[in-house]
């Protein structure tokens, strides 16, 4: 006796839960590995997963086992040279090597670290763990402006386009069974009687005729039960559900004046990519608007933004003005979650900085979820930093950080978005 079962189509990832448990348990080690890796990564492969290395000793599960020393008797196959009583000097690595199957196999890999890959999602989860988009919860509820049509069961009335055929036919079958079962039972009984009469030695012509008539009558009745009735029809029901808007736009503002060299831009780019990835975890659709500026601002595409070379002085307010203009034209704040990130080396026309401050405070910050400013420089801060400092003090949705080298980017990013427990409490 044997039964064959094809399990190939069963769910594959039976071990997923266990894998998650494993990641959970070794979170600290894995996180360390991730944050070490982030700075070594190329900008372009930020979408891939990551190899994680954990020291093997951290993973071991201890059990009582026999250690070294004492007397050990072993039998091995393939004797080619030994006679009883032969004495062989102990091999130097006696402890691990000669003492039996179990330990020998361990010692082969004992030194290695435990290396495995995590997927992109797992990687991002770890990368952005404990980070949150500021002000998100507070604002989200009053922005219920979009509606989604969702299925909500079935109803008896509706337009023909919404007829659910399977449900309707199920209803039809049920109705037909219900309406004919007693009659079918009768037919069965009558047929048995008829059979009994026919098998009988004597003739019962009259009775047989009556029975046949009764059976045909019942059969006609059954046939009259309609195949489908308006009563059977079921229509798919839909309801409107309000959903918070999940569209976001990210403004990348960058100074491309002569003082910004390629290395500085590279750092800014890493920061933008982190921000983009982070936003993509909360929002499904993200528009990115690139604005670069020297004395004039211009909206450009990604490639131009990062790689075209420009020279000239710096007027930061031009970029803010353009951003403001684009918001007015294309991204109304009732439909979009607006985020801004500005990167600069801190140079600005001294007279322009106060104007930046007013632009931010009056036009931009009231409409954006969050605006972050990073200054990438080795030198002392200039007027722009000082004015922004005042903005930061007065506005909770504005933040600024200073980056000196590539290694600062991830910590600074974490600093900007770390969960604000004070606000929550």
């Amino acid at each position: 006796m044997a039964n064959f079962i094809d399990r190939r189509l069963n769910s594959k990832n039976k071990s997923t839960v266990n894998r998650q448990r494993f990641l959970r348990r070794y979170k600290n080690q894995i996180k360390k590995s991730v944050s070490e890796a982030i700075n070594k990564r190329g900008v372009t492969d930020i979408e891939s997963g990551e190899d994680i290395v954990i020291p093997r000793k951290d993973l071991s599960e201890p059990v009582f086992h026999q250690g070294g020393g004492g007397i050990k008797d072993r039998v091995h196959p393939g004797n080619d040279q030994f006679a009883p009583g032969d004495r062989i000097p102990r091999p130097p690595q006696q402890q691990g090597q000669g003492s039996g199957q179990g330990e020998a196999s361990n010692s082969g890999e004992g030194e290695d670290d435990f290396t495995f890959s995590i997927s992109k999602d797992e990687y991002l989860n770890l990368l952005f763990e404990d980070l949150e988009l500021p002000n998100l919860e507070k604002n989200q509820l009053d922005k219920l402006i979009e509606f989604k049509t969702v299925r909500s069961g079935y109803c008896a009335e509706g337009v023909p386009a919404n007829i659910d055929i399977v449900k309707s036919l199920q209803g039809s079958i049920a109705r037909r069974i219900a309406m004919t079962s007693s009659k079918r039972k009768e037919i069965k009984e009558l047929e048995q009687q008829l059979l009994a009469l026919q098998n009988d030695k004597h003739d019962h012509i009259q009775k047989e005729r009556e029975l046949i008539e009764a059976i045909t009558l019942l059969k006609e009745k059954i046939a009259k039960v309609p195949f489908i009735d308006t009563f059977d029809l079921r229509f798919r029901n839909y309801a409107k559900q309000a959903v918070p808007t999940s569209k976001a736009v990210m403004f990348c503002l960058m100074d491309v004046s002569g003082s910004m060299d390629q290395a500085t831009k590279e750092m800014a780019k890493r920061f933008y990519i982190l921000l983009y990835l982070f936003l993509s975890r909360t929002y499904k659709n993200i528009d990115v608007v690139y604005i670069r500026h020297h004395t004039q601002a211009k909206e450009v595409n990604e490639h131009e933004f990062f790689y075209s070379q420009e020279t000239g002085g710096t007027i930061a307010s031009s970029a803010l003005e353009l951003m403001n203009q684009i918001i007015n034209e294309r991204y109304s704040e009732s439909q979009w979650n607006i985020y801004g990130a500005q990167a600069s080396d801190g140079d600005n026309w001294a007279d322009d900085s106060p104007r930046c401050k007013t632009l931010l405070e009056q036009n931009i910050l009231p409409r954006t979820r969050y605006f972050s400013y990073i200054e990438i420089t080795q030198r002392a801060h200039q007027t722009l930093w000082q004015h922004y400092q005042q903005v930061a003090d007065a506005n909770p949705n504005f933040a600024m950080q200073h980056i000196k080298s590539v290694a600062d980017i991830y910590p600074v990013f974490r600093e900007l978005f770390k969960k604000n427990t004070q606000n929550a409490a």
Partner: protein
Amino acid sequence: MATSIKEKNKKKSTSKESTKDSQHLANHVASETSPLDDSSDWTFELLDLYQQEIARVAKHYRLDTYTNQIEVITAEQMMDAYASVGMPIGYSHWTFGKKFIQTEQNYKRGQMGLAYEIVINSSPCISYLMEENTMTMQALVMAHACYGHNSFFKGNYLFKSWTDASSIIDYLLFAKNYIADCDLKYGISEVEATLDACHALMSHGVDRYKRPQKISLDEELKRQKEREEYLQSQVNSLWRTVPKAEKNDTKQHYKFPAEPQENILYFVEKNAPLLKPWQREIVRIVRKISQYFYPQKQTQVMNEGWACFWHYTILNHLYDEGLVTDKFMIEFLHSHTNVVAQPEYNSPYYSGINPYALGFNMFMDIRRICEEPTDEDKQYFPEIAGSDWLDTVHFAMENFKDESFISQYLSPKLIRDFKLFHIHDDSSNNFVEIGAIHNEQGYKKVRENLANQYNLSNLEVNIQIIDANIEGDRALTLRYTPHNNVALGDSKDEVLKHLHYLWQFDVKIIQEDKDGIDQVIASCPIKEKKEKE
């Protein structure tokens, strides 16, 4: 998608059949039985045909089996099965995740192939066939697992008396659900810590001498609730004696437990003072599962040997009947020889004695002794030489475990074939000594030592609970009794931490030194040596 693949397979096999039919017509030497299709692609129809033939032959050889449930799975599912150490339904725990990641990494790097099959001691007996196997391999696996292992599970005395195949799946399901419930009620971290602690002591959760009760799901569920309350009340009443005892010091010391306890998990489950009821249940689950696997540990050589012996015998029988082709046999023998190969001690592939090789050759040898005994065999095995081979192998399968099987049946011929030799390694010498080799004087000694090598009580650490101080500080004392002066491994401190987690009061291990005085060799929490006085 899947159906289309299947159909393609079907088409292929039917076309092959038809060509074969035409060949048959062309051939005048039509044999009485036409061989089964030997194309390498398998189909479910073909699996069933082979299965029926194998079943018929198995019956001919009186193999008594549980009903087979043969499940076809993919390589990835095979890795899942690996990770859960062969339990078809495992509870969630990180260690299985670790095993899965390890298996996956090794497999991806090509460091290991996957086993062709996994078989589970349950009724019905579940065997996994891997999708990637060829038809020949599937037939080999069916003969090996579904009739070899299966009949071993049903016939061997250890399995008969220690495990209940019909209820294990239900019990594992119960365990999984119970632990999942605990995860929700008490938090993953707590449950994980408890499981970690239990796993560390898992091999000390076995009754080695006392036969355990059979586990059945209905009873488990019914009794579990009562047990929770009852156990707690028992524990409480045991510890209630604490304050009283301090007053009358003169009273005779009440020793608890009265006798040393080898089943540490059982003792913890019943007596740990502060364990919560759900933790006791988890200890119990791990203990039961450990007990379930205990016979498998003790019969590795026999179990694999028996399965190899029967896949070899059954498929050769089919070949003799003309049911399988030469092509089939060559592929089968290629795999078979790989499985039962024994590298020699100086080979780079050597990693101890291959249980498949030893077991298979021993069963083949028993058959040889029965059918064609030499004078030497008659001298060594007077009671089986020349007897009915089928009766003898069945008797051997049913009534032995690895240790006793080897000491009973390892013949001088086999010792010579394997060129077995014995190394005596005393750490007080700076050399190792050859104790015995495959010659007249050495046979018995080699056999004795090889048998001991499979004696679990020599391999596993002998640690027993000797005292729980119920009158004072509730400290738990364990005694390590070394076998042949082998010291306890370094991990003892770590394991003790786990035991401390369960017991929650001081725990320590003592060992008698050369002068017969007990020395503490490990304790948790670790204490400075104050006890010198």
